[in-house]
């Protein structure tokens, strides 16, 4: 076999065609899209590697072609543009955890990022990776869904904006096509009167894959009395992260004192159909879903009450 030596910073043209595997590390999104359009399913995209290298442990050689996003600076940015927050796909969990803007506008996204794995994992793992990996237990997914995130998918042909709720179709399955690249997560900037709560239940206090997670975001109307929007999203209770739509219907237009937290908790318990697995039984997840929903409501209520006073 002929050996070929590549310049990682460049693109495919520096490689010889006889090589069995290719490693691309382009600097521009457009170049990445070109490579994707050419290789489609025959290439693996790598960002932080914290999922991919685990999945391919002891068999990395099975991957022939790599597209490394590390040189695309554009994808590493967090910025506010007009009324929305744009988070680049390769923004790391550490960046999310520490970003002042994220902490200010999307506190539970920051908290969820802080709850992921360990410092080593947070430093490498990315928001985009968490999304496209589409684990039912992906920690960032319920908060993103609760904040009404949209995902920007690019291909050579077109640009699409997909709401988080339409993106996930099954465990580790999404609607993203092999020639598409997730480039950005777009979140509408919230109103001032937004209250939220994040709860993660794991089997130990660090390095834990979630047994169950809950993100609750409640937005009040101008009067700060009437609930204008409420989204309760859960992870690890279904094949994909889910929103309990009935909660939204039940809460919108109400005041807090018109709500029965216990009943809302029961509603969450009734609407989910988790499975038994190594991290928890179905019964446990249902029981705990109810309890953490009540706890989340209490937390949201008390932060609302503090601001209301």
């Amino acid at each position, binding site marked *: 076999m002929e050996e070929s030596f590549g310049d990682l910073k460049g693109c495919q043209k520096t490689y010889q065609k006889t090589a069995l595997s290719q490693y691309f590390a382009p600097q521009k999104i457009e170049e990445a899209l070109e490579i994707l359009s050419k290789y489609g399913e025959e290439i693996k995209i790598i960002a932080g590697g914290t999922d991919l290298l685990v999945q391919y442990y002891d068999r990395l050689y099975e991957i022939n072609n790599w597209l490394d996003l590390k040189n695309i600076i554009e994808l590493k940015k967090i910025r506010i543009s007009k009324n929305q927050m744009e988070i680049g796909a390769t923004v790391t969990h550490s960046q999310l955890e520490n970003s002042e803007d994220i902490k200010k506008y999307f506190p539970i996204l920051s908290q969820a990022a802080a709850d992921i794995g360990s410092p080593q994992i947070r430093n490498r793992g990315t928001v985009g990776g968490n999304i496209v990996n589409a684990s039912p237990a992906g920690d960032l997914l319920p908060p993103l869904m609760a904040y009404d995130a949209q995902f920007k998918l690019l291909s050579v042909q077109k640009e699409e904006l997909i709401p988080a709720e339409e993106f996930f179709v099954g465990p580790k399955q999404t609607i993203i096509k092999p020639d598409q690249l997730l480039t950005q997560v777009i979140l509408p900037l919230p109103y001032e009167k937004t209250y939220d709560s994040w709860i993660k239940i794991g089997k*130990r206090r*660090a390095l834990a894959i979630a047994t169950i997670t809950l993100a609750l975001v409640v937005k009040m109307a101008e009067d700060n009395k009437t609930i204008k929007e409420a989204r309760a999203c859960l992870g690890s209770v279904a094949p994909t992260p889910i929103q309990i739509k009935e909660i939204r219907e039940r809460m919108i237009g109400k005041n807090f004192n018109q709500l029965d937290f216990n009943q809302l908790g029961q509603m969450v318990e009734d609407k989910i159909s988790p499975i038994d697995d190594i991290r928890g*039984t179905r019964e446990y997840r249902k029981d*705990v879903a109810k309890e953490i929903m009540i*706890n989340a409501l209490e937390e949201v209520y008390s932060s609302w009450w503090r601001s209301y006073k």
Partner: protein
Amino acid sequence: MKKRGRGIATIMFGFGYGEGFPDHSIASAEVEDEGKILIRTAAADVGQGVLTVITQIAAEVLKVKPEVIRIIPGDTHLTKNSGSSSATRQTFFTGNAVKKASEGLLSNIYHYASIEFRSNYVELGIKDGYIFRNDNPNNKISYWELAKRVKEKGDCLKAEASFFPHTDKPDPKTGQGEKVYVAYTFVTQVVEVEVDTDTGIVQVLNVYTTADIGKAVNPKNVEGQIEGGTVQGIGMALMEEQVVKEGITLNPDLTGYLIPTSMDTPLFTTRIVENEDSEGPFGAKGIGEPATIATAPAIANAIYDATGARICDLPITPEKILKALKEKRGDCKE
């Protein structure tokens, strides 16, 4: 709701292989060149610190600084059997073998030094690797100089010893025997937990330990054994389980098999009880295994104290606690 509770557990552990097994350790000590004393042992230091323990014992007996002691790594062709680094036996067995070998070497040193100094043994003093007559401490000779002179006489400064305590094989019909284990270590732990009754999650807050280990050769390392053993016990009590279904392990990695992290560690308060009347070296017994034994039952008892839920199968997962609370079950019966 978060509820706190405390539980106690007291354990015993008969250490050494015992039961009539020919359990023994062999070690040797010799004065070697370049200012070192060489200890040969095959005892495996798996992290517990046996090499440090025997360094301290040899240094104590031979009256030299610990830096003087050199231990060769275990090698089947350079060392003799020192038994297993298991059964909590190395401090007791190899510690004794090294102590006896060091004593043998020391007596050789006395023997040849008394020839050099033309004295009786009682007139000799020893300090930091030097031998001198008490009436004239300035006239001294080092172990290494002495070794040279001994070598010229065709002998060497070396001693080998073994420790081979007797135990009895228990009667196969009744398990009865006069001396089944060489000795017993005792440990008591009081554990304080906080149980979240909404989620069943248990956090171990405080662990208070007292251990009767005869004598701590190295107190800080004994504490380290206790803390490490306790955290393994926390794992056993609350999260560790290799799940095998139909012969297949469902969680064969550290993502699925959880051991405690730094975040799962409690605060430790430890007191070592020393009575020094064991047959171990300087009165020492073993702590390796006993360090882990009391923790799981103490946690189970603490969870009961906190919540009234009695769980009789390990690990005590959040599921089991919630289920027991839901069924208001205070005993083992499912």
